[in-house]
């Protein structure tokens, strides 16, 4: 590792010293392409975030890809219903690694105001891993930008080897997540136990 002080000194002299890891992560975090995937109310705020006033393009994320194959980030923008949940998991499976998920808004986190609904999934993290949760109903565009910056920090901090490396560098990592079936009364299974352990309440 290069000494941080030395690095700054060299930088002043016009010499750029970096590590492969830093360069690699800088590249990854500066061009996160989200999938063009709107579910409900939050999708409108997501669109507003990309428009002139909030301008998500400043964060390298202006290119919304309609195809999951070309996207790095899935923004779950709205209520996931039980009718839609298998499709969401399938779309996530179709995305190439490295892939990230932002759960935008109360509905995507837990079902939100519609939690009691018979057709509402109580949080998308029951089936797929979520990297950043943003509360709000809907979250303001600033909140979505905050989530982006949080995700960028997370990517920056990922080492390329060893513990905590991104999934595409880990041959043993789970690549495909089981798609729930639509049963006669409910989704089967009702959650993916490997992704979502039953929450423990400590009081």
């Amino acid at each position: 590792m290069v000494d941080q002080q030395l690095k700054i000194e060299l930088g002043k002299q016009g010499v750029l010293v970096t590590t492969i890891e830093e360069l690699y992560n800088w590249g990854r975090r500066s061009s996160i392409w989200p999938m063009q995937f709107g579910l409900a109310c939050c999708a409108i705020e997501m669109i507003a975030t990309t428009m002139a006033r909030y301008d998500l393009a400043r964060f390298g994320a202006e290119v919304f890809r309609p195809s999951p194959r070309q996207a790095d980030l899935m923004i779950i923008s709205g209520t996931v219903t039980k009718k839609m949940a298998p499709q969401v998991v399938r779309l996530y499976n179709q995305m190439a690694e490295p892939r990230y998920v932002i759960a935008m808004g109360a509905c995507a986190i837990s079902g939100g105001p519609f939690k009691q609904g018979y057709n509402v999934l109580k949080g998308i993290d029951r089936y797929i891993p979520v990297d950043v949760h943003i509360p709000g109903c809907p979250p303001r565009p600033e909140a979505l930008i905050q989530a982006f910056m949080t995700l960028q920090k997370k990517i920056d901090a990922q080492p390329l080897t060893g513990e905590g490396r991104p999934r595409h560098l880990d041959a043993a990592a789970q690549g495909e997540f089981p798609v729930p079936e639509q049963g006669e009364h409910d989704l089967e299974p009702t959650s993916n136990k490997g992704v979502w352990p039953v929450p423990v309440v400590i009081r």
Partner: protein
Amino acid sequence: MKSIEEIKSAIEAAIPGAGVELIPNPSPSGQHSLRLAPADAVEVARFLRDDAELAFDFLSNVTGVDWPGKEITEKVKVTRTVTRIVDGVEQQVEETVEEPRKRVEPGCLEVVYHLFSMAKKHGPIVLRMRTVNRTDQVELPSVTPIWRSAEFQEREIFDLYGVVFTGHPDLRRLLMWKGFKDHPMRRDYVDPDDFEYEPTAHDSVLARAAAHKAAIGGVAQKGTGAGE
């Protein structure tokens, strides 16, 4: 617009023997309704649409309502013969007592239609129809051939309430998935048990958490209830 009584008599004049019943609405909205016998409903609907003066060409809203069966306890006067000792002698005496009786009022599914007229710019008129019961005789005639706007709304009622509309061109579930078995808008529908912890729990949530824990049990579920 004609008053609801005039519309009722117009229907009866045009279609002799049509079963039309006036259901008053006590609320300040004053939207009284006509309950149709399902057998002549299509005939009446066609008359309402095609009559030059009424011209209800616009079916705005179709609603399902679930009226579950009610158990009513009422006191019934019963006369019976009892043996009693009167003046030291055993005698047969007739006496009348009030006895509580339980009676189950059968439930039904109801469909409500709101009609307006775009040509005459009046309305609404409210029509309603009832099924015989909630289990096996749930057929009602479809008005989709007369007003196309009923197409999706009747499918929705079929999906969520289980009313079968005879004569509907494409009766499938509208909102829930294919293979779903229940009718979730019925009042006796039981939610699937996918309960989890909720930070600000209401009493009903606490009750549900307790039931959930009792049903599943085991160590794996420890701590899932909100009431701990």
